[in-house]
């Protein structure tokens, strides 16, 4: 069997974090009862007109700058015409002829070193409504709350050669957009969606094979699986003497296989033409400069600063900045307690373990920075034991805000009274005279037993270190 390589390009849609929709003043907040976040404009009632949300254009420019794109100085919207119940005007306002950003790239890390993935274009468009099937009526129910939410479509060049590269590219793209604040990129809420264009060719061939487009990819894992599956399907097809047909396929992650969508959806003639209701946009250099000047600290800069200013090792800095939600939490908690190393320790240890255990993403964490900072402070000040702190942390991780209340309620506060320590030590020494003698005779192990007994006498709320020191002093040889 010949050896094949895969050639992959991505079309990524992200919903922008604007307050309002792209062409009207309805909110973009996720959720809401069906059809309560609509108006005559976003539902395409006869006679209504769109007006562009300025922030959508600013976000698009910011995304273009952060991905090394050229900004199209004279840009405009076009209409993409097709019929579907989720599209109330029967056209989507999008950009075909003059997309706002072109010719950019992102750098990803691969086992072979750094690699550039080209970005063909970024364009602005409106999202469609949501369709659900109603089994009782056997009809489709339409909710237009998401209709008109602004999207960026980021179209890469076919520069990726493996699932790993695709995941690296998506991770970098998501980080960039999250750090810019232009999108929260939550795949589970559909605010980041990726379609994979994949073709195969024999190693060494320069001409591209016929590509398929895969849709319905809901997680990075599904994307990786879909890529491997489609690569297998295409190479097997070719090996068996077949040909790959250009088509759109739908990935079924449960079945681990993709299925061709109806041919009708494959043959589209969208009759794009310039949107007459929206005047063109002339993007002045001054506007671009202003947006560039407002660019927030992006991931790589943050990673370097954590090492430089907070003394974190690169590994820690990289891990903490991988997700903007983690970095935000880290910075806020550190600012509150002044102990970045301890905060980092908790986030990279217990927090990540809990996220894994509960299968939640960093941006779904309900851990409040105030609570995290309080846990760190309590430990540092010796007010709770390390053991108790782990329990308290779980409380905070699950969204608990009143850390001190929790400590009080569960009596986790360490004994602070020196008299109590002294009494416990004397009581144990009296009871366990043999062990004390053994220690004094040089048996170090006996001290551990005595500490344990003393801690027990203190109801488990003692500071083990302090108890050890007191015993050592008392039994000084």
């Amino acid at each position: 069997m010949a050896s094949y390589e895969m050639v992959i390009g991505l079309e990524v849609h992200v919903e922008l974090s604007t307050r309002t929709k792209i062409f009207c003043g309805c909110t973009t907040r996720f959720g809401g009862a069906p059809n309560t976040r609509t108006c005559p404009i976003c539902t395409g009632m006869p006679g209504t007109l769109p007006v562009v949300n300025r922030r959508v254009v600013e976000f698009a420019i910011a995304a273009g700058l952060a991905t090394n794109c050229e900004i199209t100085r004279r840009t405009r919207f076009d209409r993409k015409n097709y019929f579907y119940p989720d599209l109330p005007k029967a056209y989507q306002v999008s950009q075909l002829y003059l997309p706002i950003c072109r010719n950019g790239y992102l750098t990803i890390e691969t086992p072979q070193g750094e690699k550039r993935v080209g970005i063909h274009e970024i364009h602005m468009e409106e999202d469609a409504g949501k369709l659900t099937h109603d089994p009782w009526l056997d009809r489709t129910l339409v909710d237009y709350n998401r209709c008109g939410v602004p999207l960026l479509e980021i179209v890469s060049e076919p520069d990726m050669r493996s699932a790993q590269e695709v995941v690296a590219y998506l991770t970098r793209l998501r980080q960039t957009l999250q750090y810019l604040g232009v999108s929260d990129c939550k795949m589970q809420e559909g605010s980041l969606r990726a379609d994979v264009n994949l073709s195969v060719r024999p190693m060494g061939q320069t001409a591209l094979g016929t590509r398929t487009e895969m849709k319905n990819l809901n997680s990075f894992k599904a994307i990786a699986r879909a890529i491997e599956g489609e690569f297998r399907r295409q190479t097997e097809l070719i090996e068996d003497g077949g040909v790959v047909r250009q088509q759109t396929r739908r990935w079924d992650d449960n079945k681990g296989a993709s299925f061709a969508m109806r041919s009708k959806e494959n043959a589209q003639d969208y009759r794009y033409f310039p949107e007459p209701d929206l005047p063109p946009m002339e993007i002045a250099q001054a506007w671009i400069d202003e947006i560039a000047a407002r660019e927030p600290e992006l991931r790589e800069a943050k990673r370097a600063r954590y090492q430089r200013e907070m003394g974190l090792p690169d590994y820690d800095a990289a891990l903490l900045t991988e997700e903007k939600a983690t970095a935000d939490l880290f910075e806020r908690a550190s600012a509150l307690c002044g102990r970045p190393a301890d905060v980092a320790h908790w986030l990279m240890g217990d927090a990540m373990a809990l996220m894994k255990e509960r299968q939640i993403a960093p941006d779904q964490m309900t851990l409040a920075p105030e609570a995290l900072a309080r846990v760190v402070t309590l430990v540092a000040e010796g007010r709770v034991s390390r053991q108790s702190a782990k329990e308290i942390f779980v409380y905070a991780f699950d969204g608990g805000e009143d850390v001190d209340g929790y400590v009080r309620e569960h009596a986790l506060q360490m004994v602070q009274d020196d008299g109590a320590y002294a009494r416990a030590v004397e009581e144990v020494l009296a009871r366990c005279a043999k062990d004390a003698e053994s220690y004094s005779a040089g048996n170090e192990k006996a001290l551990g037993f005595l500490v344990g007994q003393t801690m027990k006498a203190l109801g488990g709320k003692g500071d083990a270190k302090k108890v050890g020191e007191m015993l050592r002093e008392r039994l000084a040889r």
Partner: protein
Amino acid sequence: MELFDLTALELGERIRAREIGVEEATRACLSRIEAQEGTLHAFITVTAEAALRRAREVQRGIDDGTYTHPLAGVPMAIKDLISTRGVETTCASRMLKGYVPTYDATVVRKLDAIGAVCLGKTNMDEFAMGSSTESSAFGVTRNPWDASRVPGGSSGGSAAAVAAREVFYALGSDTGGSIRQPASFCGVTGVKPTYGAVSRYGLIAYASSLDQIGPIAIDARDAAAVTRLLAGIDPLDATSVDAPPPAMPEGDDLSGLRVGVPRECFADGLNGEVRARVLAVGDALQALGATLVPVELPMLPYAIPAYYVLACAEASSNLSRYDGLRYGFHPEGIEDLHEYYLTARSEGFGAEVKRRILLGAFALSSGYYDAYYDKAQRVRTLIARDFARCFEQADVLLTPAAPTTAYPLGAHADDPISMYLGDIYTVSINLAGLPGMSLPCGFDGDGLPVGAQLIGPAFGESRLFAAAHAYQTHTDFHRRRPPEAGAAKGAKANGEL
């Protein structure tokens, strides 16, 4: 002077002077509507009760000083493609039968704000596609001067309603001549403002880059007053422009005004009587101090083809939303989505609308876009350049509004293209985004009104109003009105209403 010999502004003045009550004027108009509609059918919907309620409310507003506008309390009507909250808005299409908008067009809000009294929604060609009002799904409108003839279109209902004095002014819309041509056929004054002068928010689109709302009125001063009221930038319409409102015309001195007369507009295909009447307008303007300048519009023969490609292309997209899923006409008992779309759209739209949608979809389709849509857009540029050159030599242009006077009902039934040719003098103004105005300039041998068109540069409405007002100061064509319909010759029962 009888009530119906007054212009809208004259009536407004008497209302503010408490010489005529708003309710009295409204009732008088409603009686006239009742008497004439059986013949004319200018309205799709008459909102008599709401109008009387509104009349009383406006009277109180006038009495307590809330409404001071010169047109406060004056009865008017709105073409049935302008969105009116709570009042059925059909575009004269089966497709929108029963559709009751939940919002008001910006122009409707402006009318409300000054105390206008709206009597109803006027008939039109379906989705404004036509020049005779015969493609309305709800029956034809007849010309008040001769009920066997068309009122023109697509704003035929508005023009007929004003000509027959069922109302004192009406709103129309003009995509390729749909205000100016019916105004000329009905002997009233109609204005297509500069593209962007009046908000299109709430105007149900035919062709978005060509559509404008404008007044159909009794004379130039009324038209100017309504245009001033409608004009202005609207945050809800990104194509609207912040420009000073046109000035009210005063006096009759046209010294220094250069009136361009495009040679091509007086060539073959123009009815001789129309030609003579329109050229007489030139003489009249000259007598008032204007100078006539010969100008050229070499692209004129390409205007209609370019217009039909662009208008139909935009329409094919604008009218895609009518699928019966959310409002308007909906077929019953069809489970398959695709079948539902086909049925809703094939049964909801009339023949002319479907013809234009097909042409438009063709012009935008893969493989034909460059040869048709893109080509027409480039020709559009050439047409705009023609006008730019003319306005280097002239301040306004004078042309006929239409090549003929009103033709008999059904005259173009078998040949849509022959009807398209009637738009020859009007469509290029929409392509170039310029203001145009049609004013009555006499009658032909059959007693049918003839209309002259004045064209201005962008936002040159003031010049049009000044010239037209000066002309009307010395003529009375705009003051003449047809005998009350029903008594008019050729009248037949319409069967509607």
